[in-house]
């Protein structure tokens, strides 16, 4: 043999290919290594007294059983309430009644377009004016603020889902003699539910993150407890590290779930691209043009702003 074919793929790239092909295993290994390193580092800090392990051991029940539970409870309740609100709003938004449509649009834009912090404060005032008792007020305001905020976001998600179903399919359903309820049940909902599941999970993460702002009106959730413990003990590193890790323990698995659901619930030809390599975690096959579909799908994972999109849509048509 005159020459051995040189391999253009270096060791690093080989490792990367292996990672691409063993996604979850390598992620597990890396996350494991990171967590071990983190704990080794924190342990070394405990030896010098810079990190108080006794704080963690004594306070962790409060962080988890009061903070995390409250956070999850508030987020969960608001999320479910917001889902019904969002579904109804989406339905109003695509209905034929103009006033209903405008109302829904106004609600969606107003609450997606302003900072949720401002919304929380506003609800606190409204609730405080109506009911006595500080803690109860804060709780009611918290749920009201989160529900109405997430309702607006979920409405947009549902609307996107309904819009993705082609008119032709609905007509075909009618032609088969389906009533509108049957149409909803057998044709629209099964598609919409699959389409919206990933962005809806994503919305749950966003809501969970937003719930940290409730500490500002005095709701005793995870962030509030971290701040509270900081003030009681005058420690800073410990409570915030703990709170951050607990938040990550909730959001990172959920984010992974989004990615998983996106592959699992994909309907070929609908919404998400199948062959871009983006979701399969491997190298895209040569020649697969992905640009538009990839961006469209990816944008589900990102944070979109109604006002910006509004300007964009309107000005773009003028180009």
């Amino acid at each position, binding site marked *: 043999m005159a020459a051995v074919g040189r391999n253009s793929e270096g060791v690093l790239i080989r490792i990367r290919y292996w990672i691409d092909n063993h996604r979850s295993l390598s992620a597990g290994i890396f996350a494991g290594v990171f967590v071990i390193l983190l704990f080794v580092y924190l342990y070394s800090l405990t030896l010098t007294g810079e990190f108080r392990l006794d704080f963690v051991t004594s306070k962790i029940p409060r962080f988890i059983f009061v903070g995390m539970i409250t956070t999850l409870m508030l987020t969960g309740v608001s999320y479910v309430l917001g889902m019904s609100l969002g579904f109804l709003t989406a339905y109003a938004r695509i209905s034929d009644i103009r006033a209903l449509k405008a109302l829904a649009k106004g609600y969606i834009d107003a609450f997606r377009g302003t900072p949720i912090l401002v919304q929380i404060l*506003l609800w606190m005032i409204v609730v405080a004016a109506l009911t006595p008792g500080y803690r109860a007020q804060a709780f009611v305001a918290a749920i009201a603020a989160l529900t109405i905020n997430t309702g607006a976001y979920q409405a947009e998600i549902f609307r996107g889902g309904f819009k993705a179903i082609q008119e032709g399919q609905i007509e075909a359903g009618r032609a088969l003699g389906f009533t509108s309820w049957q149409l909803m049940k057998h044709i629209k909902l099964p598609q919409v539910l699959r389409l919206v599941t990933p962005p809806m999970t994503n919305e749950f993460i966003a809501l*969970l*993150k937003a719930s940290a702002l409730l500490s500002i009106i005095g709701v005793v959730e995870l962030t509030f407890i971290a701040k509270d413990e900081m*003030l009681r003990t005058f420690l800073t590193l410990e409570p915030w590290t703990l709170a*951050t890790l607990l938040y990550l323990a909730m959001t990172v698995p959920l*984010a992974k779930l989004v990615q998983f659901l996106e592959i699992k619930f994909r309907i070929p030809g609908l919404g998400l691209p199948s062959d871009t390599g983006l979701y399969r975690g491997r190298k895209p096959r040569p020649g697969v043009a*992905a640009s538009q579909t990839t961006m*469209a799908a990816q944008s589900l994972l990102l944070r979109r702003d109604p*006002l910006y999109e509004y300007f964009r849509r309107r000005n773009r048509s003028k180009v």
Partner: protein
Amino acid sequence: MFGWVRSRALYVEIARFLVLIAVILGVIWLLGSLGHLDLPFIITVLPLIFQGAAITLAATAFILPVALGVGFLVGWARFSRNPLAYWVTTLFVEIFRGTPQLVLVLAAFFIGLPLVAPAGANPQVLAFWVGSFALALHSAAYQGEIFRAGFQSVPTGQIEAAHAVGLDSWQTMKEVILPQAFRVSLPPLGNEFANVVKDSSILGFLGVLCIVLCSRDLAGWGRQIAPLTFNVNTAVFSWVVIAIVYFIIIYVMSTIMLAVERRLRVPGLEAAL
């Protein structure tokens, strides 16, 4: 300043904006005539609110370029075939995307600030910087994902064609991948910028109310600021002012982004939004 915007569109835009302001003023007047408005009180808090708006503006001006730069590098690393760069930036994205903005800002105040503060520095100013930096990293995580999608949107066939023409990897990156990735990323970037504006309201809020920096007794956080914040007037006013400021920032920004997009327009590379 808006020379590159179609002038008619601009007039219509200004007209709409004026109408909106008129409506808001009308609502305020209505509230006042119904006796819900405590004018002297508003006049005392108005400077505070504008200070908050100014903080939001300044923070946005700082966060955007930082987040853009870091996000770009993160996106590049997440696209690269280098496993170390890939995993380190993946970790970065997971951590900063998965932690609430408020927690990041507070952690930056209480853990980051003492670490970086030089002796005799003004803590309030420094707090602004570290808080903005935390928000910048949060946004960078999102922008990293935007850029990564942009990089991945370049069909591999074109990369192969670039090699076939004789470009090496670096030239391929510079001449073929980067220009396309950048263009495709523009529209979602604009969206993310709008979110940065909203998030920076946290800084404005914390700064103005001095919760973190001025008051030594933070225990009754919620209750303490209640008299100030939970006043209908302040709240409505801060809401209106923030909404207006927010509207203006987003408007200017989206106009700029659209002009950039139009300048760089390439048939076939308009990203779907």
